[in-house]
């Protein structure tokens, strides 16, 4: 796999639109189809394929809280911040 900095790659204005289009396709595929498709893309465009693999394989850690939660309340106590 090509070594890429995700942040650098995504901030490239020509890269993100391509990634976004690929995600629209990949998110509708099952895991086997997704892997086959990425294998094919790796031959044609290894950098884009590497970025997609990083995104799809990243552990769902901190941002995982987004999946099931949202902020429900802000509690402001009597020691009021000014």
């Amino acid at each position, binding site marked *: 796999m090509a070594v890429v900095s995700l942040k650098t790659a995504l901030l490239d204005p020509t890269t993100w639109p391509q990634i976004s289009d690929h995600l*629209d396709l990949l998110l509708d595929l099952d895991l086997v189809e997704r892997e086959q498709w990425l294998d094919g893309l790796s031959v044609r465009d290894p950098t884009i394929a590497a970025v997609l693999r990083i995104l799809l394989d990243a552990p769902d850690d*901190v941002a*995982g809280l987004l999946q099931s*939660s*949202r902020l429900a309340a802000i*509690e402001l106590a009597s020691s*009021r911040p000014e």
Partner: protein
Amino acid sequence: MPNSELAEIMQAAEMGDPDARDRLFTTLYDELRRMAQRELRRGGMLTLSPTTLLHETFLNVSQRESLAFASYGQFMSYAARAMRGLIMNYIRDRRAQKRGGGFHITSLATEPQAAPEDISTQQVEELNEALQVLEKIDARLAECVDLKFFCGHSFEEIAVLRNVSERTVRRDWEKARLLLNGLIDQED
């Protein structure tokens, strides 16, 4: 600020003027903060829903001399980022004070069987840093997170605000989640 001036800033922001966007952010931030503090003065302890705060602020702003916002959706698209800024600053204030009270946030689990959970301020700080990068990559995705996570809107409500399908909103959310995960993971 007279609403006519606010309307001019909004118009410039809509045209892509970055200075106008910054001024609009500051203006809406101040409006939200002022409204939150007004609510605070009403009682010693208050639980304030971000959605309620945004709605009250919209009513307050739109009922002045003239209607500054063409729609609630337009207001929300600008106010969502200001709401995140307000929450992040309350978190920092609380941390700086290093004493009880002040501020804390809770989350709402969207699955009926799951209990509401506490979110650590570090998690929200990491999320905010990743969101600042996401804004530069795709502002629409970052706004989707602001509207859902920081403002408490449902997918259906965001779809109505944006005049798009719920499927489109869910796809934006999924992409935003993937990018945030990837950005946070590479920072570790």
